[in-house]
């Protein structure tokens, strides 16, 4: 195992997540109307990310996008016209069926039809999931795709799924999430033999609700999975495993608590250090460390969440993403193509299916 590089800092993880591959050009379809600050911020992020190895199909109302690109056109950004918009409050399946000309559905379709190899949107998460299932389809054998995100834990982020795609799951779904999360950690982040924990309310195998207890048995019995056992909520932050698996209901709550807490702490620190003169002097001395902590807790470092289990990489960005988050989300989408993620997932899911009872 010595030959495998260890990931030492959040920056290493970020670099692994957004790396490009020499000689391989990837086309990413980007929903220009997704997110709270679209399309302006999306265009800024696209211009940061696009280069000779990462071409962007920018999908949205052509006239408006030309205006925003005026004076800073890029040979690596191509506009694809789509006037309609799916709003963040739209009912997902209805919106995907009812607005085939929307920027989100068009971006996903370009990806399913092969004009692009991956897709990014900071828009309606449910609509992205529905469009992905309906147009890109899941990898053969995948029961439920899951939202896979990186929790900015300390000292290193943790791969976390399902962050909200499936509110109700069966034990075998959780077992499959464990396989998918482990493949993601290995193929995309380069972690050797990643360990997997199952989110529960106690470390003993018998702790948890009925689904979790049964899932624990299934995962523990699966020779493909390097299973650590149950983990508790605090281990989302204090990193003890590489991958944590949960159902989408608990997973989404955990993620939101985590993000809310991080945001509150960062904002309180900011308030405190801009208070008295003494605090300012202290802050000046601690500035590099404070910045490091701020960066470690910043979700925009990692840009977006994977919809894991689909035949192409689909990335969902934070609705509140700024240009940096959009750019990192697009780079993350591209990495989904240049890594061995999808072929390995397909092979592992098939192998797991063949040995299932």
């Amino acid at each position, binding site marked *: 195992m010595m030959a495998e590089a260890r990931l030492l800092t959040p920056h290493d993880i970020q670099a692994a997540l957004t790396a490009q591959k020499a000689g391989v050009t990837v086309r990413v379809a980007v929903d220009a109307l997704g997110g709270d600050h679209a399309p302006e911020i999306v265009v800024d992020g696209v211009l940061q990310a696009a280069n000779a190895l990462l071409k962007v199909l920018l999908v949205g109302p052509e006239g408006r996008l030309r205006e925003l690109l005026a004076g800073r056109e890029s040979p690596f950004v191509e506009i694809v016209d789509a006037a309609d918009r799916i709003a963040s409050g739209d009912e997902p*399946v209805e919106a995907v*069926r009812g607005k085939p000309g929307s920027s989100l559905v068009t971006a996903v379709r370009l990806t399913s039809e092969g004009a692009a190899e991956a897709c990014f949107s900071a828009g309606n998460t449910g609509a992205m*999931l*529905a469009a992905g*299932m*309906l147009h890109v*389809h*899941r990898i*053969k*054998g*995948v*029961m439920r795709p899951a939202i896979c995100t990186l929790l900015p834990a300390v000292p290193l982020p943790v791969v976390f799924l399902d962050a909200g795609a499936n509110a109700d799951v*069966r034990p075998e779904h959780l077992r499959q999430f464990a396989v998918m999360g482990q493949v993601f950690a290995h193929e995309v982040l380069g972690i050797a033999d990643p360990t997997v924990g199952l989110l529960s309310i106690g470390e003993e195998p018998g702790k948890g609700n009925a689904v979790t207890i049964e899932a624990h048995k299934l995962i523990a019995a699966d020779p493909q999975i390097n299973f650590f056992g149950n983990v508790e909520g605090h281990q989302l932050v204090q990193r003890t495993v590489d991958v944590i698996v949960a159902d989408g209901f608990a997973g989404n709550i955990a993620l939101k608590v985590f993000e809310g807490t991080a945001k509150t702490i960062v904002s309180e620190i900011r308030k405190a250090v801009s208070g008295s003169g003494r605090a300012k002097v202290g802050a000046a001395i601690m500035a590099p460390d404070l910045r490091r902590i701020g960066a470690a807790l910043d979700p925009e470092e990692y840009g977006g969440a994977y919809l894991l289990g689909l035949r192409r990489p689909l990335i969902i960005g934070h609705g509140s993403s700024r240009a940096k988050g959009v750019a990192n989300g697009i780079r993350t989408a591209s990495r989904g193509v240049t890594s061995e993620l999808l072929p390995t997932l397909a092979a592992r899911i098939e192998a797991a299916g063949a040995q299932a009872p």
Partner: protein
Amino acid sequence: MTREEVFEQVKSILVETLSVDEDKVTMDARFQEDLETDSLDLVELVMTMEDKFGIKITDEEAAEIKTVGDAVDFVMGRLG
């Protein structure tokens, strides 16, 4: 296409696209109760059937399709 051929096609959609256990797919199998598909799975099934058989299925018609047999009969009716 015979009823048997349509059944085989619907079955292949369920197995290949929705990852349903092949052994569970019979004419009488109910989508929600027996095949444990959710609402999004059913939309995916309907859309894949539209593509595969070149037919249109409205949301109201889709709501009436409860079993694999219903789906096969619907397609047979359309293909005439």
